[in-house]
C-alpha cells in the first residue's frame, strides 16, 4: 500500500460523499425522529423491567443508532457501484493505484462517516433525550468500532456478490430492518416472539445492542463488552473472508439509480 496514493483516494471519496450529503443528513435525522416517537414506549418497557429511573433513551438511542448505521451500509456499496456508472472504475484500475488501495480508499471514508453518524446520534441521545451512560464510556466506543467493522465487512460482501445498485439498496433496506429488529433495536429481545428470541443471536445487531445495553443500562465496565464485541467482530471476520473470496475487480456492476 502506498500511503500517499491511499490518501489521495480517500480524499477523493470523501469529496464524492460530500458532493451529495442528502442521504447522510437523512440517515441522521430519521433516527432522531424515530427516537422522539419511540422514547415513551421504551421508557414503559424499561420501567416494567425494573429500571425505575430509565428515560427510555437507554433503549431507543442505541437501537435506532444501530438500525440506521445498518442503512449506512449503502454508502460503501454505492461508492463502488457509482464508479461503474460513471465509467471511472476502469480509469481508476488503469491508474497507478492498486486494487487494495482503491478498495481501502472507498471503505475508510464511508467507515468514518458511519462512525460519525453513531457518535452524533449517541451525543444527541445524551443531550436531547436524556440518555445516561451508567457504565463505561470507553465500552460504548469499543462497541461502536466493532459495529463499524461488521458493517464495513457486510457492505463489502454485498458489493462483491450483488450486480446492481438497486439490488444493493433492496438488500440493505431489508437487512437493516430484519437484522436490527431481530437484534432488539425496536423492542427488547425478551418481548419478541419465541422463535425470534431463539435466532436473535444469529444477528450481529443482537451482539451490538447487547454490548451497548451492558455499558449504558447495566452499569458494566469495559470488560462487559468483551463477549459482545468479540461476537460482533467474529461476524465481521466471517463476512470479510467471504467478501474477499467473492470480490473481483473485473466484475461488471450496474448503477441503475
Amino acid at each position, binding site marked *: 500500500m502506498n500511503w500517499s496514493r491511499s490518501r*489521495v483516494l480517500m480524499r477523493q471519496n470523501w*469529496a*464524492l460523499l460530500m458532493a451529495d450529503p442528502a442521504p447522510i443528513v437523512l440517515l441522521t435525522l430519521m433516527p432522531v425522529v424515530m427516537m422522539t416517537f419511540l422514547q415513551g414506549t421504551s421508557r414503559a418497557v424499561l420501567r416494567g423491567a425494573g429500571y425505575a429511573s430509565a428515560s427510555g433513551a437507554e433503549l431507543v438511542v442505541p437501537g435506532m443508532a444501530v438500525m440506521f448505521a445498518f442503512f449506512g451500509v449503502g454508502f460503501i456499496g454505492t461508492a463502488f457501484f457509482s464508479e461503474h456508472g460513471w465509467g471511472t472504475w476502469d*480509469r481508476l484500475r*488503469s*491508474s*497507478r493505484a492498486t486494487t487494495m488501495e482503491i478498495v481501502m480508499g472507498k471503505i475508510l471514508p464511508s467507515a468514518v462517516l458511519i462512525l460519525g453518524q453513531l457518535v452524533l446520534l449517541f451525543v444527541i441521545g445524551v443531550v436531547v433525550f436524556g440518555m445516561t451512560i451508567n457504565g463505561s464510556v470507553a465500552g460504548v466506543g469499543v462497541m461502536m468500532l466493532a459495529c463499524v467493522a461488521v458493517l464495513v465487512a457486510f457492505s463489502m460482501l454485498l458489493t462483491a456478490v450483488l450486480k446492481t445498485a438497486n439490488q444493493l439498496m433492496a438488500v440493505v433496506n431489508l437487512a437493516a430492518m430484519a437484522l436490527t429488529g431481530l437484534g432488539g433495536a425496536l423492542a427488547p429481545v425478551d418481548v419478541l416472539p419465541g422463535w425470534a428470541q431463539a435466532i436473535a443471536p444469529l444477528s450481529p445487531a443482537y451482539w451490538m445492542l447487547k454490548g451497548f445495553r451492558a455499558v449504558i443500562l447495566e452499569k458494566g465496565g469495559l470488560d462487559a463488552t468483551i463477549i459482545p464485541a468479540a461476537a460482533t467482530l467474529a461476524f465481521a471476520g466471517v463476512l470479510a473472508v467471504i467478501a474477499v473470496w467473492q470480490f473481483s475487480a473485473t466484475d461488471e456492476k450496474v448503477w441503475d439509480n
Partner: protein
Amino acid sequence: MLEIKALKKAYGGHEVLRGVDLEAKVGEIVGLLGPNGAGKTTLVSIVAGLRSADGGTVTVNGIDAVAHPDKARALLGLAPQDLGIYPVLSVERNLTFFAELSGLTGKRLRAQVKDVAEALDLANLLGQKAATLSGGQKRRLHTAMALVNEPKVLFLDEPTVGADVQTRNQILEVVRRRAEAGCAVVYTSHYLTEIEDLAATVAVLEGGEIVARGPLAGLIAEHGSPALRLTFEGSAPVLDGFEVSGSTATLRTPDPARAAAGIIGRLNGSTDRLRSVDIVRPSLEAAYLALTGRRSNEDTNEKTEEVIDELVA
C-alpha cells in the same frame, strides 16, 4: 516503447485475440482499426492492466506489463471507449485527482492540470461541475484525464465518438502534439479520416489477429485498390468477378466508373433490390474494405445512431 507479442485472450472458449503482435515506437501514432468485436477494446484493456491475458507478452518501455502491472501502469494513459468522468465534481477536481494519483504534486501538478486544460479548451471551465458540461466538453475532459499524468504510452479508445467537429479537431491536435513530444499513441477509431489526418501507422485487427500493419501510404498502395460496390436490400446476388459479403457485392477494378455503367443491365431480377452504387477510390477506406470485407461505417453507422438517440433523448 510498447511491444505486444503473441497476445492471446479467450472468453468462454471464444478466442478474441489469437496471437496479436503490435508495436508502437516513441513518437509513433498507431491507428488500431477493426470492426466491432475484432478485439480492439480487449487488447487495450489487457495492456492497461484491466484484464489478464491467456498468453503472450506486453512490454512498456522495457517493463514487463504482465509481471509488473503497477510499474507499467505508471507509464500509461487510458481514455476508455465509454465516457469516464466524475459528474458530481468540478473539471479541475477530475483532472487533479488523476494527476495526484500518478504522483504529481505542488507546482508541477498545477502546471500539468493547466497545460492539459488549455490544450483541450477546458481552462475556462475548471470550476464548473462536470455534470453541467456539454457533450463535447465532457469528451474533452475524458481525454484530458488520460493525458494529465504525462504518459509515455497513450491509449485512446474511440475518443471522438459523439464529438462535434471542434472537439474532434482539438483531440486530434493534442494527439499530434503528444506524439511530437515523444509519446507513443495507440488510437482506435471507426473514423478512418481521423487516422488519415493523423498520418498514423495503421494496424488492422480482424478476427483477433493483426491482418495488416504498416505506414498509411504503403497500406493504401497495397490494399486500397479502386472498387465498385453495390449494396442490395437483403443478400447480394452472385455476380461474375464480384466478392459478395452480406448485402454488398464488391468488384476490384482500376476503372470502377466504367464497370458501373455496364453492370446495371446484368443484374436481371436483382435490379429492384439495388439500393446504392458506390465507387471506392484508393484510400484507407478502400484498403480497410479489402482487408476486412466490410465498410468502416457499417460500425460507424451504429455509433452514429447511438449518438442521434442520445441527442434526441
